[in-house]
């Protein structure tokens, strides 16, 4: 035996080979949300088809929900139409909907794991590119388009080519103040935003072995930013401990059988990979982006690159990035004025993210020139954070404590940048216009770096601001 987890999961879920050579792959778990599913339900109706396995699709509402005034109808009638359409589609087809009043609503990639729906050795699809997040559990999880949402609803399968597998090892202990977010930003910086094209990324090594489940999710989440549609970590005791007792996790005797099965999906020690890359954790420092894609990143102590010093093929994009970001090549990124601090998203909106920041922000104040918001990834995260006193710490420090959703990660709800505001953001994309203003500027970083920017009013080294040792 010398198979990767991807090989094994693929084999277990292959229905047949299609005429064009693609695999008809069974998708065991389907997650949907309000933005990319209504058209798919419309297509089903047009074709006279029904949802084949309604019990294997789970819905929530995240992209368009307001994070402050959450009573319906929403003031934005388009957003209101979207939540109503999802509610209706779920009710008509018998799909479980973690709706706003349920207390279980949240970002789809946070709700799946916290409900125990996300499980090892499974296939998962969702009409959202950050579906790779679920790979942290040893699932093979794909972001898909709306036509494929239709395909999965109607047939519980999709047509797809098997990717190659690149093993990415990170070994050693991260320095204090360096986080999973820095690890993935570093990997994308090294391999490029299209370096993962055609690959699934299998993350491993002693750094990943030591990571919590939530840290693994942060890394897998951004696989797509490196061009890899799928990213995963082999399941282990950390994974099983996280899942145990969650609402949709197997119970009783079934639990032991499930764990045994899950273990068997892990890559064999002698598994063959199409590529292997290894990094040392000690070489990674707090990382921030300076440009308009997540690969345009530097360590906090570095200067913004001069276009003349970047490879010729990347030069035009670098110049475009500097013009958009209103930054100068050759200058430090540290000290750049910040207008907004956003703590949240499917990358870093989990309880451990909030706990880590709260620990350091206690007794500190948000800078007078900064609007700082915390958007918990789910109502579950929010409730825990409130009961633990974290919300109070954030509010005392001057952060706005909001309701759960995608919020300012993509500005589909009322939370948007204005004009050319610069946002220190724990989210995953710094594309032009991503945070709701065409000229808005996004600097991606870890949650603690966002807190450091909030407190100082400029891009700062969190290790200095909070004396992290």
């Amino acid at each position: 035996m010398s198979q990767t987890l991807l090989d094994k999961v693929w084999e277990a879920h292959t229905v047949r080979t299609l005429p064009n050579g693609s695999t008809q792959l069974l998708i065991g778990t389907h997650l949907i949300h309000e933005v990319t599913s209504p058209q798919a339900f419309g297509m089903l109706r047009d074709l006279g088809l029904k949802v084949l396995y309604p019990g294997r699709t789970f819905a929530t509402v995240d992209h368009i929900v307001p994070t402050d005034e959450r009573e319906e109808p929403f003031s934005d009638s388009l957003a209101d139409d979207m939540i109503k359409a999802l509610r209706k589609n779920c009710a008509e087809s018998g799909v479980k909907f973690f709706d706003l009043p349920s207390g279980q609503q949240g970002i789809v990639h946070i709700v799946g794991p916290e409900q125990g729906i996300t499980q090892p050795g499974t296939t998962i699809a969702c009409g959202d590119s950050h579906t790779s997040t679920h790979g942290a559990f040893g699932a093979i999880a794909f972001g898909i388009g709306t036509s494929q949402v239709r395909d999965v609803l109607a047939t519980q399968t999709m047509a797809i080519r098997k990717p190659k597998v690149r093993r990415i090892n990170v070994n050693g202990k991260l320095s204090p103040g360096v986080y999973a977010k820095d690890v993935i930003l570093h990997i994308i910086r090294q391999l490029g935003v299209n370096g993962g094209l055609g690959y699934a990324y299998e993350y491993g090594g002693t750094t990943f072995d030591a990571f919590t489940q939530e840290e693994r999710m942060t890394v897998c989440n951004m696989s797509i930013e490196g061009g890899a549609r799928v990213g995963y970590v082999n399941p282990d005791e950390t994974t099983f401990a996280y899942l145990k007792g969650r609402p949709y996790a197997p119970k009783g005797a079934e639990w032991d059988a499930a764990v045994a099965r899950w273990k068997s999906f892990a890559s064999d020690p002698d598994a063959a990979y199409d590529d292997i890359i290894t990094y040392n954790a000690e070489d990674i420092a707090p990382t921030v982006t300076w440009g308009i894609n997540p690969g345009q990143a530097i360590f906090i102590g570095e200067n913004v690159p001069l276009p003349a010093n970047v490879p010729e093929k990347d030069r035009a994009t670098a110049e475009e990035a500097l013009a958009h970001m209103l930054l100068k090549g050759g200058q430090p990124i540290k000290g750049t004025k910040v207008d907004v601090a956003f703590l949240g998203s499917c990358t870093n909106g989990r309880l451990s993210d909030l706990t880590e920041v709260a620990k350091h922000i206690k007794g500190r104040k948000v800078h007078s020139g900064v609007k700082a918001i915390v958007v918990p990834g789910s109502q579950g995260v929010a409730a825990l954070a409130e009961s633990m006193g974290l919300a109070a710490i954030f509010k005392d420090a001057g952060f706005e404590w909001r309701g759960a959703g995608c919020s300012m990660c993509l500005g589909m709800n009322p939370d948007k940048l204005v004009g050319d505001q610069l946002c220190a953001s724990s989210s995953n994309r710094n594309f032009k216009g991503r945070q709701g203003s065409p000229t808005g500027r996004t600097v991606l970083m870890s949650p603690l770096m966002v807190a450091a920017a909030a407190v100082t009013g400029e891009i700062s080294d969190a290790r200095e601001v909070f004396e992290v040792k």
Partner: protein
Amino acid sequence: MALEKITQVTGRGVFVPGDDIDTDRIIPARFMKCVTFDGLGEFTFADARSATKEEGKTHPLDDTRFAGASILLSGSNFGCGSSREHAPQALYRFGFRAIIAESFAEIFFGNSTTLGMPCVVMTSDDIRALAGIIESDPAALVTIDLLEGKVSAADMDFAASLPDHAKEALVSGRWDAIADLLEGLDDVRARAATLPYMAA
């Protein structure tokens, strides 16, 4: 469900230069507040076009010389980022029937193929040469021949490629997989029965 066999796409071209053009750029998220894809076409590259206008320049998609173009040319890693099918749907509704780039992001590529909008790869130099032909004669017809693996314009031929599975799907009229997938439903049920979590 017989679909058109797409072996060739012919039309005028327009070049939107740049690498890593993401799907937020193609269709900004605020225009996705909709429950159908109708009407997305006009918002194609909305922010890039208005920003260009504010600079006193004309975006290629607003340049009357290229009005009605149905073949889009761009750089590498086209369509990266969000999986939103709104992006290829917007391009299709704008009038595009094929895209030529140095490389494509994977989800975008699949979404476009499913719409019957081929994504064809050419080298950077060839794309620039083709863009030059279009620039000097915007009425020049560009022909993408999927079977021959070439793109022709103004007596010039360029090598062009797309992966075998996508080519096969397009030329055989099976680019929307739903019919093939539905044919396998008995196998789907059999496979699902082997997976304990599917019974839950």
